[in-house]
């Protein structure tokens, strides 16, 4: 057998965990205040002129109709998301059944479940890796505000501490119809947004 048996560490080294600990402490320090939700679409973006508005309409329709969510479930709400993508409430009717595993190709991130501080840096890095334009849907009470575990020592009280959230879907867990209502709101928001979506300039994590 090749001679690197001594290189195999059965247990990860201490400092790898310490770096992770520092990352978590750093993100806790930086996310005391919730990030404002991107809501410039409320004012209605109009560039005037026929060409741009029709281009906006076509672009909005295309982005709305082929929204690829990222394959990403944290806890119990993930099962309701799977039920929504299952064969009874069929998410493929909206062309959204392609759950892209890699953040590069995903348009939307559904945070389904409780987000803990130890998981926060990973979620933040995934959000940074996603290609613009990207949207975030907070599914479930735990994602919206920490839910029943909000006063726990290890739960992020609401993911808008670390991500700009576009749509909040309440419920613990929200029924698939609730999730679809949230998706319809997001579709309407994308339709109105037009191509000049100014991405929220967040300091990248590392």
């Amino acid at each position, binding site marked *: 057998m090749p001679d690197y048996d001594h290189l195999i560490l*059965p*247990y990860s080294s*201490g400092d790898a*965990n*310490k770096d*992770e*600990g*520092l990352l*978590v*402490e750093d993100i806790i320090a930086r996310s005391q205040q919730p990030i404002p939700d991107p809501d410039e679409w409320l004012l209605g973006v109009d560039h005037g002129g026929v060409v741009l508005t029709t281009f906006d309409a076509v672009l909005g329709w295309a982005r709305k109709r082929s929204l690829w969510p990222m394959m990403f479930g944290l806890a119990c709400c993930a099962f309701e998301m799977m039920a929504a993508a299952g064969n009874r409430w069929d998410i493929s009717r909206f062309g959204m059944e392609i759950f892209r595993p890699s953040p590069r190709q995903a348009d939307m991130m559904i945070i389904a479940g409780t987000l803990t*501080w*130890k998981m926060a840096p990973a979620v933040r890095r995934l959000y940074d890796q996603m290609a613009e334009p990207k949207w975030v849907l907070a599914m479930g009470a735990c994602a919206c505000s920490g839910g029943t575990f909000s006063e726990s*020592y*290890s739960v992020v009280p609401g993911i808008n501490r670390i991500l700009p959230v576009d749509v909040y879907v309440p419920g613990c867990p929200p029924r698939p119809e609730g999730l679809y209502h949230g998706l319809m709101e997001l579709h309407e928001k994308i339709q109105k947004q037009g191509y000049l979506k100014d991405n929220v300039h967040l300091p990248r994590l590392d």
Partner: protein
Amino acid sequence: MKVLAGLDIEAKIQAEIPESVVESDQESILIDSRAIPGVMRFLKDTPEFDFNYLNNLTAVDYLQYFEVIYNLTSMNNKQTLMVKSHLSGRENLEIPSITHLWQGADVQEREIFDLLGIRFIGHPNLKRIALWEGFEGHPLRQDFL
């Protein structure tokens, strides 16, 4: 499924390992923390007890002392036993680990170390399991804010 009372096995353990039993009552037996490996090996190996299955391993903070609880089951003799041991004081609590007897104790001991701060001597990989490395304090202690 017979629940073994601490009283009727106290004599046998005392005979095997002198002054290891601190106290025993109807459902559980209290063992001195330093004698845990010896008693556990005795409980596991002797054919009469043959406790080959470790159900549960947890710990409680009673402010004056910490209590570590082991639930053992013998699949062949169909009997269960609850073994306890006390650790006094609140800083640098130490108790010998039993991962060499039951591998299942590995992750449970790491969880007790992480959430209650009890060190297990001889544990191969004693690190935090549920919380991140820089977290100060142990949440499941009664005085954790």
